[in-house]
């Protein structure tokens, strides 16, 4: 497949069309009915949560949040393939992958409500915290890849970045290191056409990202990131490739950020309604759902039944997060070092003295 879709040929892997019809039977991944329904439900759950979070934010119940709206098939595909032992090195716009790793929504809520504790992800194995400095995480993925080879482990690293992130030096260094080391890393670029307000064409003179793989001597493929089956196929083949000791893969998932960059952003400043509507036709949930309905695996009725259940569950976790409790003074200091140096212990004690004084005064 990597030969057939060598980026030099300017081909994009696509398996279903915008109406959910299979247009590439040869590469259709083999998934049974149960797996398919689970994948769709995962994506539906992620979208339901995402839209609710944007609402919570409007109500002032959570701080700035970067919506995933429109990009669910990418994480959705990874979620079906990533194993418990595999690593996930995130950016910040791939919620479906976090949930698949065992992170809870509640923890994510706690994080976006402004507690460091929300980065612990207690039950998620091999999942680094969200990385805000764009692209910096990719090098961590390459480093983990080195350890996997060093200790002969059967693991893969999945790491994410946006199209804007491919302009940072770290992106190029990460691909280069992973290439030199033949590290089992799958780099997934979610090319959602924008980095905040900056359109993709301002990031690079190249007409795609996948082709950049060639310069680093690694495999690359451009995929319709709103086509669940194409994403699944690409990730499945990449995992085989990386597990086989053949080194990293760069997947460019072409998608569209249907929401705002974050809840503090206003996309009407820099893009048109017509453009948004054009991309609406490619919506990943719409397409997978059409396929499922045509194959009698899903129905509107089932969806109407399940969405309210999801909403209830999401709200329950949200309220739990809202009751997370006080942020203790000690939490500022506790994890700065494995053992707290005397100097900052003193700073904490001094501050406590001040708080006592303040209380006595009022």
């Amino acid at each position, binding site marked *: 497949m990597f030969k057939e879709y060598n980026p030099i040929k300017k081909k994009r892997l696509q398996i279903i069309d915008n109406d959910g019809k299979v247009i590439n039977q040869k590469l259709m991944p083999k998934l049974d009915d149960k797996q398919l329904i689970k994948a769709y439900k995962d994506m539906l759950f992620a979208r339901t949560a995402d839209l609710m979070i944007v609402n919570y934010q409007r109500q002032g119940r959570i*701080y*700035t949040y970067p919506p995933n709206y429109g990009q669910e098939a990418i994480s959705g595909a990874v979620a079906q393939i990533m194993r418990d032992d595999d690593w996930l090195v995130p950016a910040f716009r791939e919620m479906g992958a976090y949930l698949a790793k065992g992170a809870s929504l509640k923890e994510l809520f706690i*994080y976006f*409500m*402004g*507690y*460091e504790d929300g980065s612990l992800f207690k039950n998620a194995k091999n999942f680094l915290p969200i990385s*805000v*400095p*764009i692209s910096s995480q990719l090098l961590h993925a390459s480093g983990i890849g080195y350890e996997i080879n060093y200790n002969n482990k059967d693991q893969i690293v999945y790491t994410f970045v946006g199209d*804007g*992130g491919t*302009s*940072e*030096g*770290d992106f190029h260094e990460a691909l280069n290191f992973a290439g030199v080391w033949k590290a089992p890393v799958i780099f997934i670029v979610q090319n959602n056409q924008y*980095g*905040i*307000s*900056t359109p993709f064409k*301002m*990031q*690079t003179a190249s007409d795609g990202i996948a082709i950049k793989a060639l310069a680093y001597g690694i495999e690359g493929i451009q995929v319709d990131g709103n086509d669940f089956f194409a994403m699944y196929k690409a990730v499945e083949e990449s995992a085989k490739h990386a597990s086989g000791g053949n080194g990293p893969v760069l997947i460019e998932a072409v998608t569209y950020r249907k929401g705002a960059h974050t809840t*503090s*952003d206003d996309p009407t*400043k*820099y893009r048109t309604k017509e453009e948004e509507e054009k991309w609406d036709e490619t919506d990943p949930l719409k397409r997978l759902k059409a396929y499922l309905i045509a194959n009698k695996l899903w129905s509107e009725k089932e969806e109407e039944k399940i969405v309210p259940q999801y909403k209830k569950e999401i709200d329950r976790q949200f309220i739990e997060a809202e009751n997370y409790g006080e*942020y203790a*003074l000690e*939490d*500022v*200091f506790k994890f*700065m070092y494995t053992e707290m140096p005397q*100097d*900052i212990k003193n*700073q*904490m004690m001094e*501050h406590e003295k*001040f708080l006592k*004084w*303040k209380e006595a005064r009022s």
Partner: protein
Amino acid sequence: MNMVNAINNALDIKMAEDKSVIVYGEDVGVEGGVFRVTEGLQKKHGVERIFDSPLAESGLAGTAVGMAAAGLRPIIEMQFSGFSYPAFNQIISHVSRMHNRSRGKYKQAIVIRMPYGGGINALEHHSESAEAIWGHIPGLKVVIPSNPHDAKGLLISSIESEDPVIYMEPKRIYRAIKQEVEESKFAVPIGKAKVIHKGEDITLVAYGAMIREAQKAAALAKKEGISVEIIDLRTIYPIDRETIAESIKKTGRIITVTEAPKAFGVSAEISAIANEEAFLFLEAPPKRVAGFDTIVPLPKGEHHYLQTAEKILYEIIRTVKY
């Protein structure tokens, strides 16, 4: 004008006046920056003179070095100071050194703007105050305004400086303070602090968003019968030793207020200046009200970290009673 308007106004004036001024950075063009500081300037001055860059801070600083060597006057924006670190190599290895290395042949008339500081309920990396890092690099000037008037005047001076300037914008008060500010061009000199409140008993040195806290603290102290002098530092480097020393000679006591961590910070520098320039006048050890030596906590914990008027008052009372 608020500070956003004032910075925008200064950029506008210098772009109109000097064709060698080029403004670029992430999202500064079409959108006018995430804080809208450059709003409207692309429409007015054209896409060749103010534009969106690829997302790469090292790229911003490195290309600015080249532009400046070739005679342009680039103004680049780091979207948040917490994202300036990919540019650290270019800034410390070239921006600050090219002039010296080339024995004055290549000037680095570069302004690096960056919003900084806490108190805006932000994600990680959006709240820190790293002025000491920049102040520590020989070859850079570092400027921080505390109000719209100074923001405009200092930015004019920064753009006209033949040497590179790190221009740090206290984003927490971007829109919090409104002032009458002259529409026409004026400059506030780099390297000059200002006594903004005269007093007798103790000197407070602050800058940026901490000026407001210092003013509130001075009002509280007045009720306790303590007369506070406030110095707005305005320039971190080159630091105005004279104004600081003179004030201490009058009051005999000094507290520096910073948002930044205490260790190796601007407040340490000012305590050193107090010792070096006015040791015999000191009636109490120079004090520091500064951030903890920790990461700035996420929003739910940020109240523990931020400096408040009450915390400053607490130290004022302790210092006066010393």
